[in-house]
Structure formats: structure tokens, C-alpha cells
């Protein structure tokens, strides 16, 4: 119900909204639209194209779509999202929430506290903690596993940043699924259990149908966040030899380090399209069953 209890009046109300809309417009909407324009130019950080960019039509897009390095970074990003967001954060987050449901007490507080602390810590610190853990010569993992000299970061860069992203991002899914599981009536689970359903069957047949909206919301959010996240750059900088160069690192490298802003904008726009398609697919899936739960 909107009642205008404060006697604000439509005109003043609009005045209240305008500052926020202007800020969001200039620093969020406008950059998004500008990406489209920059993407069809040869705009660069230095040289002639910096002062006077030429329109090059779809050249940037043609080049990006034909660039093997871009293909490789897309494939690595797909692995990163599937491994660290879908399987890692959502899977582990659900598993922890499931095991800890209806079990208040010190064990739950400790486990949840550790996972939350990993989430609260600034990501730059987390990046360094993982460097310390995986370091070639003196890393904690080498000391624990008695594998002196094992170069985890160099030999398994993708696995390293996937573990890192699972470590710092699982808390969100755990909390979301924890809240979702509270909405599943315990009596339904009890009935299924008495009928001889295994934990797997209980989850598949009783829990998942009821928390479908939460699952969709969670998968969309964490996938978008992971797809666009740049933090792994601090661990491997995309290396070695580009073996952990996910799309954000690729864009940073070609656009801001390589100076080709127009080309980078074109790739950014492709990323934006992927994000948008993901969001629209999610909305459709959510609407088809009538449940959008945030």
C-alpha cells in the first residue's frame, strides 16, 4: 500500500529518486550502453586511435570470435563456473546446510563460523592465503603432504583457482540453502524416511521440488559473480602460459594492459550478452513454475 503518509507529493517524491537514478545512470547504465559504441571502434589507450578513434564496424567482433586465445579463455571460464560455482559453492553449500539442518550446537557454530569467516575476509587476503597454502617451496600443503617442491599453482592453475573460489564463496550458498531447508516441512522428510527413502531420494523427491526457486536464484547469482570475477588474477595472473586465463583476465590483458580499448569493449559486450541470456533463461525457468524466491 502506498499512502503518501508524509504528504510527500509526486513532485517531491520524484526529486527524492532522481539523485540515485542519476548516479546509477551515469556509472552503471551509461557504461553498459557505451560498451556497444566503443566495441565498433578501434579506440586505443595510446597512438592515433586514442585521439581520433575510427569506426571499424564488426571487425572487433569478427576478430574476437576468431581468436583462439578468446576461445580458450571461454572454455576455461566454463570450467571455472561449473567447477567452482555450480559443483563447488552450490554443491558443497547445500551439503553443509543439509548435514547441519536441525542440529544446533557448537559443531554447527564452528563449521558455519569457519565458512562465514572465509567469506568475510577481504578477497585480496584470501588470494594471498592460497598462495601461502600452495606455494612451490614452502607451501603449507607441501609441508602437510610431505611433497616438497610440488608446484601446485604452476602444475594445476585451474584446479587451484577453482578451490580458491569454492573456499571464499561457499558461505552464500550455505546460508541460502539453510534458509530454504527451513521451509521444507520436517514431517514430509520423516514420512519419506519411514518409507525407506535414502538421503539421496529424500533430497531428489522431497527437498528439491520445494526449493526449486532458491536453487535457480542461487545458481544464477553465483554463476554471474563467478563468470565476472577478477580476483583469481591475484593468484595466477592468468598463467602459467595462459592456462588459467579466464575471460575477465583476458579482457584486462588485451584492453587495459594491451591498450586496445575498442577491442576490449567488444569482448565486454559479448560477456554482457552471455550474462543477459543467463538472466533471461533463469527468469523463464522461474516463471514456468511460478516460483521466484530470493
Amino acid at each position: 500500500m502506498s499512502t503518501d503518509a508524509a504528504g510527500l507529493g509526486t513532485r517531491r517524491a520524484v526529486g527524492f529518486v532522481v539523485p540515485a537514478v542519476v548516479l546509477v545512470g551515469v556509472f552503471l547504465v551509461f557504461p553498459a550502453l557505451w560498451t556497444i559504441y566503443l566495441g565498433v571502434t578501434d579506440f586505443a589507450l595510446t597512438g592515433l586511435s586514442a585521439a581520433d578513434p575510427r569506426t571499424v564496424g564488426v571487425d572487433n567482433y569478427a576478430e574476437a570470435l576468431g581468436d583462439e586465445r578468446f576461445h580458450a579463455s571461454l572454455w576455461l571460464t566454463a570450467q571455472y563456473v561449473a567447477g567452482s560455482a555450480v559443483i563447488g559453492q552450490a554443491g558443497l553449500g547445500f551439503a553443509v546446510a543439509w548435514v547441519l539442518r536441525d542440529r544446533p550446537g557448537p559443531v554447527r557454530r564452528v563449521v558455519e563460523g569457519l565458512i562465514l569467516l572465509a567469506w568475510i575476509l577481504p578477497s585480496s587476503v584470501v588470494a594471498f592465503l592460497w598462495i601461502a597454502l600452495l606455494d612451490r617451496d614452502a607451501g603449507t600443503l607441501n609441508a602437510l603432504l610431505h611433497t616438497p617442491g610440488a608446484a601446485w599453482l604452476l602444475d594445476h592453475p585451474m584446479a587451484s583457482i577453482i578451490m580458491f573460489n569454492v573456499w571464499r564463496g561457499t558461505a552464500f550458498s550455505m546460508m541460502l540453502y539453510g534458509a530454504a531447508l527451513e521451509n521444507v516441512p520436517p514431517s514430509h522428510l520423516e514420512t519419506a524416511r519411514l518409507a525407506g527413502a535414502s538421503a539421496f531420494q529424500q533430497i531428489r523427491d522431497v527437498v528439491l521440488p520445494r526449493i526449486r526457486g532458491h536453487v535457480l536464484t542461487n545458481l544464477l547469482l553465483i554463476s554471474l559473480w563467478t563468470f565476472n570475477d577478477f580476483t583469481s588474477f591475484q593468484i595466477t595472473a592468468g598463467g602459467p602460459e595462459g592456462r588459467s586465463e579466464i575471460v575477465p583476465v583476458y579482457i584486462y590483458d588485451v584492453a587495459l594492459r594491451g591498450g586496445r580499448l575498442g577491442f576490449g569493449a567488444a569482448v565486454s559486450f559479448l560477456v554482457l550478452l552471455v550474462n543477459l541470456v543467463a538472466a533471461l533463461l533463469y527468469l523463464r525457468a522461474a516463471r514456468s513454475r511460478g516460483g521466484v524466491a530470493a
Partner: protein
Amino acid sequence: MRGPEAAARARHAAAAIGRATFLAVVSGFFALPMLWLATAPFDAHPTITVSVPEFTLAGFRELLDNPYALRSLGNSVLQAAGSAVLVVVLAAMAAYALSRVRVPGWDVLLYLLLLLSSVVTGTAAMVPVFELATRLNLVDTHLGVVLTLSGGLLPAAIFILKDFMDGTPTSYEESARVFGASPSQILRHIVVPVIRPGLATIAVWTVASVWGSFLTPFILLRDPDKAPGAVILYTLYTEGGSPRLELISTFSLLYSLPVVLMYVFVSRRYGFRFHGGIKR
């Protein structure tokens, strides 16, 4: 009768052991990297390996002598506080108007902005944001970082606060109006106190988001004197070739402490759990 019962008890025990093992492995996975953060700052000879520290506070003394690192913490405070003020004030005004006055199309607008803000994050806006800041002379300024981060956080902040305001009754405002209070008096003396928990949530959420953000300051700030903790920590490691571990570990701890304490304080006080995308 005995058979099935014993089988059930065995199954129960197996499940309990499985649960305990799972929780132990998960706890180990999450605790392991943190051990280094907890021990290395106090170690006289820190290595990258976790070890029982030979206790010292020399790392802290060295950090105090390093204005570069300390200043970055000041920069983090400045950028986080600036963004929090901007986001809280603008989001509160907008959410209040959106909640109390119905203007056709606003709900759709808000929804579109929210969708856009989750789609246009990080990389997708990296180039135009850099270009925009260059044109507006905002490169190498705190203001540039604050405005860019605030623009990204505002849609979700408005959304959360509007929800909060929709849930609070309008009767206080109505009676204040009957007694002749002006809209700005009503806002300051009635609305703000009533929705204080919502404002605190938004403020904490903004501070935590800005405190941890790396990409925006990394691309907008060239001058290391203005860089926040997130960026300085990264450069401390890479520029020297050999990392100065006593400095990095101490700095990591000091840089982490404020958000950890803030989280502990807020969750004790308000008992809320972060349900939004705090890490952006």
C-alpha cells in the same frame, strides 16, 4: 524383531560417522588457509608454511614504519565510508519515495536496474568505466572509486530498503502530519529512527563490499598513495620479487580485522544473516 532394529542402529551409526567425517574434512578445508593468517604475523621468522610462531610483535612495528601500507588502510576507510554515506543517503531517499508514493512504472524501473546491476558487473563494464573516469577526470581520485562502486551497489540497496519500508506501518507518519510536521521533519524524526536497522544493514553491506573490492580501484587508481588495502596487498607481493612475509602477514591481519569485527558486532547486535550479495 531384533534383526531390523540392530540393522537400523548400525545404519544410524554409519550415518553419524559419515556426517562427522564430512564435517571434519570441511572444517579442515576451511581452517587450513586461515592458520597462516593467525600465526605468521606473530612469528619472528615467518615462512609461507604454517608453523608454531616464535612470538614477536616486530611485524607490527615494521608495519608502523611503512607509511605506504598504513596509508592504504586509511584509503580503504575513506573509500568505504564515502561509499556507505552516499549509498545510505541516496538509497534511503529513493526507497522512501518509492515506498510511500506510487508513480506508475517505478517498480519496473527498479527491477530493470536491479537486473542490469547484476548483469553489468566487473569485466563487462571494465573498459567503459575506465574511459568514463578518464573523461570526467576521475582517474586517480577517491571520488572516482566511490562513485563507480556506489553506482553498482545502489540498485540492490534501494531494493532491500524499499522492502524494509514497505513492511513498516505509515501510521506514525500520518499522525505527525496531522500535527503539522513537514515532510523533511517527518523523514528525519520519524522515518529514519524507525528504519535504522535497515539503514545499518545497508551501511554494513556497503562497507564490506567496498572494503574487499579489488578490480575498480585496481583499474582506476594509478598513484599507489591512493590505493586501498586490497590493491596494496597485491603489489606488496608482486613488486618486490621476494615477498616480505612479516609485512604481508601483519598487513593481511590488520586489513582483515575491521570487517571481521564489524561482522561479529552486527550479527550479535541485530542477529541478521547476510542474505544478499555482499561480495561485489
